């Protein structure tokens, strides 16, 4: 009795095993598990710029390596990498903000890369000393103003808090990553207390409740609702280069200030990336990073999306040249990541929407 039972158990186990294998084979075929395919690169990207597709196509054309992509907000992508654990197919994580890269490194999600090509091409302050992450383009967060309404525009971020600008300032909402990084940088320069007082005063100066994207801040100046606005440079440059609804054609009335030229310099953030710790195609991943630092890829950042290329000798787009040159804040980019949660707390505490 017992024997037959154990025998039937064994055969049941065998059946189960066969079934399991068949099932797995089936699923592998069905999902086409990309981690196992050679000659590919799995890219987790939070870059959301339409022109990036041409950038990736060129890489494939040059190297024969196919790019598989998933795009979402960086923090969501990081959650996915974490959940996928040791078997994550992710090779490269690209973000539009240093804060996320910093957090990814802190969580041990990125692996150090050694590449003399990358080290040579990218200035030291725009990459991690151990090679966990590299910045491939930069963007400045600057002040725009209505030339007709503001004779004496704010020269620094701190001046945005000046009561003489009451009812004039437009910004995005405080949960936006660009606003958080700006605040994170400020915390480093002036300290938490002053940064908090600043946030409260800027909010009190608002022309309308914080809302919309960067382009909407610029549109606010164009339509006359805002006298002063904070935005990333490339959104304005884009409107100079091509048609942006309700903005192009009205850019002449908008002036630009690169803030804090006499002190710590203008807040600059990077779009960058690194190789993921368990990358199945690590070699391809390094090739991809090196490609992003090549002249032709840098041209896409510059000409396609009006960002500042990081590699010396690559020309800015004509529209970006019109904005003029400036002194950038060269503080350690790590600080922007380190202070990010603090930045959100401060905004929350002063009731910044």
């Amino acid at each position: 009795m017992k024997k037959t039972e154990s025998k039937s158990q064994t055969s049941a186990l065998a059946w189960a095993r066969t079934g399991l294998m068949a099932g797995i084979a089936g699923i592998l075929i069905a999902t086409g598990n990309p981690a196992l395919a050679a000659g590919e690169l799995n890219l987790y990207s939070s870059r959301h710029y339409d022109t990036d597709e041409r950038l990736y196509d060129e890489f494939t054309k040059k190297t024969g390596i196919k790019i598989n992509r998933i795009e979402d907000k960086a923090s969501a992508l990081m959650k996915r990498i974490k959940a996928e654990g040791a078997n994550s197919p992710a090779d490269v994580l690209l973000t539009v903000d240093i804060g996320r890269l910093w957090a990814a490194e802190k969580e041990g999600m990125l692996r150090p890369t050694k590449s003399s090509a990358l080290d040579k091409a990218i200035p030291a302050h725009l990459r991690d000393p151990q090679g966990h992450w590299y910045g491939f383009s930069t963007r400045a967060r600057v002040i725009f103003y209505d030339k007709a309404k503001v004779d004496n525009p704010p020269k620094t971020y701190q001046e945005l808090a000046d009561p003489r600008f009451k009812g004039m300032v437009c910004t995005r909402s405080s949960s936006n990553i660009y606003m958080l990084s700006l605040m994170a940088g400020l915390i480093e320069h002036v300290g938490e207390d002053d940064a908090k007082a600043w946030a409260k005063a800027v909010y009190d100066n608002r022309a309308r409740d914080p809302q919309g994207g960067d382009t909407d801040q610029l549109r606010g100046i164009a339509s006359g609702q805002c006298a002063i606005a904070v935005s990333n440079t490339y959104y304005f440059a884009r409107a100079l280069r091509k048609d942006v609804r309700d903005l192009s054609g009205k850019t002449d009335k908008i002036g630009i200030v690169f803030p804090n030229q006499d002190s710590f310099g203008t807040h600059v953030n990077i779009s960058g990336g690194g190789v993921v710790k368990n990358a199945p195609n690590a070699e391809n991943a390094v090739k991809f990073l090196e490609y992003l630092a090549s002249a032709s890829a840098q041209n896409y950042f510059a000409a396609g999306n009006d960002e500042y290329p990081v590699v010396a000798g690559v020309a800015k787009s004509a529209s970006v040249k019109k904005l003029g040159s400036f002194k950038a804040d060269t503080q350690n980019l790590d600080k922007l990541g380190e202070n990010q949660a603090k930045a959100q707390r401060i905004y929350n505490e002063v009731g910044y929407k």
Partner: protein
Amino acid sequence: MKTAISIDRTKGPPAGRAAATGRAGINWLSPLALAVAVVLIAPIGWVALSIFADDQGTLGHLAETVLPRYVGNTLVLIVGVGVGVLIIGTSTAWLVAMCEFPGRRFFEWALILPLAFPAYIIAYAYTDLLSHPGLVQSTLRDLTGWGPRDYWFPNIRSLGGAMAMFIFVLYPYVYLLARTAFLEQSTCYAEVSRTLGRTSFQSFRQVSLPLARPALAGGVFLALMETLADFGTVAHFGVETFTTGIYRAWLSMDDLVAAGQLSAMLLAVVLIVLVVERAERRRARFHQSQRMSDLSPYRLSGSRAWLAALACLAPVLFGFIIPVAILLNLSYVDGHDLFTRRYAVLTLNSLTLGVLAALVAVALAVLLAYAARIDPGPLSRIAGRLANLGYAVPGSVIAVGIMMPMGAFDNAVDAFMQATFGISTGLLITGSVAALVFAYVVRFMAVALTTVEAGLTTIPESMDAAARSLGATQFGTLRRVHMPLLSGGLLTAALLVFVDVMKELPATLILRPFNFDTLAVQAYRLASDERLAQASTPSLVLVAAGLIPVIILSRRIMTTRAGRRTANAGSG
């Protein structure tokens, strides 16, 4: 009618109940239903359970600073949306179901059209039209010569604006359920009420409305759940709701525990709403589908007819015609080329996900609803309630709740297979379409379940009794009696899930396989790059694709007038 034949099983004698379930040997149905519900609730439970982990004091900070505002905004929003969809949905449903006025036949189906619009896309459209630089305000300034800040104009990016967007696209839920309820109400009630001298309005208020209450509650429930789960619209408008809070805790402050705590609070609110809705429905189990003749409608004339037409036109205008016109204009100005391989692939992906999720959701909804019907008791009741919860939970919360355990499972399988057979299986489910479909089913189960349940309650239990006494098994009854009667309800459920899946964004974004873009993803990508004009192209395709099931629904609606159905049945 109800008292004579229907058997109230919840209070029935224990012996009868045992006989009903025991003989067919399917008392495993309720445990099975509960198991399904537990699987469906697992991702949400996983997130909610994180409240027991160590927190970083984020919740305390949020409670002191922004939480009161989130709660206040959320309450105002759901009360406003609830009242709005109830008034619009009920009044239009009653007008097209019970009255006759110019354009009634057109409005009967046109009133569903806004359902094809995701709330975030209608928000994009109205922002373009009504914001300060938009057409309306700049025309106003040109005409009046007012300066840019000389006048007051309602701000579209506001709590009120968000409320309007939700009402515009969500009232069809109430309309659909209310209309069916009005049509299925026994003619006798209406005739008696008229014979007794009630005017049309009095009949509506004193007879039709109370009878339709469970359906109305169901419709409002769906609309409110969808409002609570929304992120795209409120984020675009900068309105801070509970969902915004969850995102902020989680993404900006990187505190999953606080996000879990907030999600748990949101769930508590949903549970309360759910209990109220269930209580409503229990109070009114009128099995009354028999309808001997078509009710002659109230013929409206003169100004009343015009008012009725206007009342029906307004929701269609604001919820569909105007936003479509805005998108068409944007697309004409600066849209993408639609007829490319790329948009074909996007559309195909969206359709595939919608169909798969709809099939799975409806199959499970039948299981759950049927368990509650033939094997009533705490198990099946709890199963039904649990399965509904996902609808109010933001897609991204569900996504995380799925990703984490699933990743752990995949890795455990891989480790086991490596140790045992020396082969690596990698990630099996994570990053597959299956994971995505699971997320959709978790999220939209309530839509399928509510509709199937509503359909089942209109089948009198006397029919079950008759079928059983004629020797049919429980499954035989399901297959040969219920399914044919339910087919319309099943189709409705499938179509509603399909449309919802097409529109879903956050879970799709994070759970999808490589290189698997959908129309919603493409619209979001372009919008988040602040290229709203280009985003109009995928938005339009999305609405057009969503229109297909909506049109099928509409056609169904045209044929579901009781009198006509009888005629069809006779000829076929």
